[in-house]
């Protein structure tokens, strides 16, 4: 079957279950396509031979009751994988091979999926364009020299280019939804506490969440169902009743109240984003939803708050990379010298910038003015959402204030880069679930996404809304395979 890689996850699962396809056939197809797609630079570490072996073993004794039977999958290189190098996109971990498996990936393998390799990402997930990776830029399959978004840029690129049927990313301030939006794919950031953080290289502990990135909403729901489990090894994991998201998926959203927050009409927002949003509102209405204007008054403060909280936590989380125990070490005259050289050479510029910001905002004399105040504002932002959720079931916004930009376009302007997260960070600060679905193209033909934000633990509801709107939108990604010679 030559069109294996064009199939969605749900189709592949169906075909393997009905024995129309073997895991080996599927794995081989994705491995071959991945191998021909090196120019996209999506992979940091390939594990093709092992993947093909595992597929063979699966076929010898296939367990077709599993949810992801023999499905090959490449994943973001922020998840620790036993015996396979895990770098977090950083030089400082470029030789690190975990002896343990993250809970989220373990859940995936438990359902029969097979690891193909580790996907590129911004260094320690800090970035919105995948340009901070030690392992180089990732190309967006939409167009040459276009960023795939970040930090899960390798993941979004790989799904859009069909190098993997589905993948997982992590989202601290938009790192799943923004790259999904830039590549015309679907990305879900679950409620904080839904997916275990155990074994995921930490960026900002109170914001980080793993989530599925897929070609469509149904695939996304299926993977969410697999990865979301309560985990005693993560003290912030929440023990709530999880749905069988893919089984309970429905397009019937009649009467659902969807809020449109006026504060998301930011200054200088391109008209095509405004238009996309209007179109989205019409689609939602077409699906039978009721549109309600709402206000989230503290939205303006979300970005500055995020850029205090996230770097603060990161500055502490990244202290463990000191050259003493594992990873990269630069020799030094003494301990302090070794620390300085290791961390100067091991971390890239963006990571160093955030460590410095974080160290500054936590330092004595500044803590109250920055970190403590940011925590208070964070609470206000959360209260805004709590208040509107008394009136609405979900919120509809654009995913990003623009479409994908060119590689190098914003690298010298960190603030403009940070502005990319303006619609996504409030969701992380409030710990809510949010999903980005492709909803149209801009003038250049680049994809644009809409974001649906839900109540905490209400993934099912936003998946349903996304599922219903997906059908009305009928989005088609325009990918020419330009990188395959």
């Amino acid at each position, binding site marked *: 079957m030559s069109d294996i890689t064009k199939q969605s996850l749900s189709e592949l699962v169906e075909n393997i279950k009905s024995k129309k396809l073997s895991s080996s056939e599927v794995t081989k197809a994705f491995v071959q396509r991945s191998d021909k797609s090196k120019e996209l630079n999506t992979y940091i570490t390939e594990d093709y031979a092992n993947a093909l072996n595992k597929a063979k073993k699966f076929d010898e004794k296939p367990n077709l009751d599993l949810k992801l039977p023999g499905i090959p999958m490449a994943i973001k290189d922020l*998840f*620790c994988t036993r015996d396979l190098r*895990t770098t*977090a996109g950083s030089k400082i*971990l470029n030789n*690190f091979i*975990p*002896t*343990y498996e*993250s809970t989220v990936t373990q859940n995936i393998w438990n359902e029969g999926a097979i690891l193909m390799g580790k996907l590129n990402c911004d260094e320690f997930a800090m970035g919105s364009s995948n340009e901070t990776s030690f392992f180089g830029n990732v190309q967006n399959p939409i167009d040459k020299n276009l960023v795939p978004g970040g930090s899960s840029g390798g993941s979004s690129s790989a799904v859009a280019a069909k190098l993997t049927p589905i993948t997982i990313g992590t989202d601290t301030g938009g790192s799943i939804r923004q790259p999904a939006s830039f590549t015309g794919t679907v990305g879900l950031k679950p409620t904080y506490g839904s997916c275990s*953080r*155990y*074994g*995921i*290289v*930490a960026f*900002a*502990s*109170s914001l980080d969440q793993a989530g599925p990135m897929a070609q469509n909403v149904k695939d996304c729901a299926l993977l969410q169902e697999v990865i979301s489990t309560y985990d*005693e*090894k*993560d*003290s*912030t994991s929440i023990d709530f009743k999880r749905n069988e998201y893919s089984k309970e998926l429905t397009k019937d959203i009649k009467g659902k109240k969807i809020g449109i927050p006026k504060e998301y009409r930011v200054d200088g927002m391109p008209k095509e984003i405004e238009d996309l949003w209007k179109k989205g509102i019409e689609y939602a209405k077409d699906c039978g939803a009721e549109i309600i204007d709402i206000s989230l008054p503290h939205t303006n403060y979300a970005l500055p708050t995020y850029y205090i909280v996230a770097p*603060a*936590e990161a*500055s*502490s989380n*990244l*202290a*463990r990379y*000191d050259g*003493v*125990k*594992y990873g990269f070490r630069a020799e030094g005259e003494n*301990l302090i010298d070794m*620390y300085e050289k290791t961390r100067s050479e091991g971390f890239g510029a963006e990571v160093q910038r955030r460590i410095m910001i974080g*160290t500054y905002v*936590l*330092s*004595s004399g500044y*803590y109250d003015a920055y*970190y403590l105040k940011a925590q208070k504002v964070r609470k206000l932002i959360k209260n805004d959402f709590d208040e509107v959720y008394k009136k609405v079931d979900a919120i509809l916004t654009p995913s990003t204030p623009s479409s994908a930009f060119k590689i190098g376009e914003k690298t010298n302007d960190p603030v403009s880069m940070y502005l990319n997260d303006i619609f996504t960070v409030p969701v992380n600060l409030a710990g809510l679930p949010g999903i980005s679905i492709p909803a149209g193209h801009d003038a250049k033909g680049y994809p644009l996404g809409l974001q649906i934000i839900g109540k905490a633990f209400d993934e099912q509801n936003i998946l349903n809304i996304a599922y219903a709107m997906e059908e009305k939108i009928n989005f088609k990604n325009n990918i020419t395979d330009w990188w395959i010679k």
Partner: protein
Amino acid sequence: MSKNKSEYLINRHDNQYEVVIGLEVHAQVTSESKLFSTSATKFGAEPNTQVSLVDAAFPGMLPVINEYCVKQAIKTGIGLKAKINKRSVFDRKNYFYADLPQGYQISQFKDPIVGEGKVILDMPDGQKEVGIERLHLEQDAGKSIHDLDPKNTFVDLNRSGVALMEIVSKPDLRSPDEVNAYIKKLRSIMRYLGTCDGNMQEGSLRADVNVSVRKKGSKDFGTRCEIKNVNSIKFMQMAIEYEANRQVDLIEDGQTIDQETRLFDTKKNETRSMRSKEDAHDYRYFPDPDLLPLEISDDFIENLKSEIPELPDEKKKRFIDKFKLSPYEANILVSDIETSNYFENVIKKSDVKLATNWIIGELFAALNEKNLEISESPISAGNLSKLINLIKDGTISGKIAKTVFEQMMEGDKDPKKIVEEKGLKQESDPKALEALIDKVIDDNRDKATEYKSGKVKLFGFFVGQVMKVSGGKANPQLVNEILKKKL
């Protein structure tokens, strides 16, 4: 302020200085596993054999609170008559060091698990109350070993992540003796509770000592210096004495004291500056986002209260009220849980007064000589009880009992058997004694004459002779009576 004779003051010229001391005691929580991981905590294991991925801070590893350690901290708080905080928060204390794998220590900063409490000290001139400021839980660091290699430092992470209770006193201590009493009392309470073994040699109990001085009568505190990580009471006392005198000398010399952290050099017996206030670390404390605030219910606390054993202060009161011990005796017997258990076992079947004297006197001296703890005593409580009963019922004299006791110390033997085997039973038959006494008087005719002519001091000589002849077995009371008649 008490004006008693044991007041500790430093005199210089015409000035008298009072020493103000506060302690931050680090007590290792007695627990099979670490504060945030399941690694073992056994002392003395091979380096790096009790280290989990969490303790070594591998990427993506997360701390999970050990409920047992929380219970231990709350129990200790109850033992210190302290307020238990139903909500407490774990913070990160950030600094870089090779034996701190995370690059931060998880501690409690603004919201500790235990608030204000108190400890009562029994000083020679009465009781003294020392305030407890707080108790919080935190992780211990690993150990850097600098002397195994000329160029490299070795790191042992066995201790990394072990649970510590930091117990901070108010600046209520005024002398090295009070510090001694405070540490011992704290140790005693925690050993009663089973929350810390108090073993200072193994580092289970160590302290930072804050010292300042002020002119006697002054209400204001002087500038304090913190002496880091002193691990024996003796060194604490020496460090305080040195440091207080150093500060007084500076003041008398017209100089000011710099607030700083100092180290105690045990070889030179002096404190040395480690870092000044300006060089102090900025630890950038903030709530650990990997851990939720610790919330404890009333039931949880009540359940723990019901597990609290009788503590030294209550036990002392009971010993005084019920057994009529003196406060001095009671203090000694309750100072250690093992001692008080031993005592209570002895008196189950024997006389309290005799038991008290024998334990505090003979037993303690003998154990001291052999450098043994009471838990290692060769004489079991049961056998000491038997010995006391032999004295009480007149079977042996107190003097013979000492001989028997010595033999019991050589190996836990039944005193009755020793008495029988060695024929040490006391001679209380008046006729037999009369015969002995007659012989002694007969052998010492000249002395008897002298006695009768008024040299009454010689009575002691005759008692001694009779005892000697009897091989110490004669009942001394009867010997006295009969001798008086005969002479």
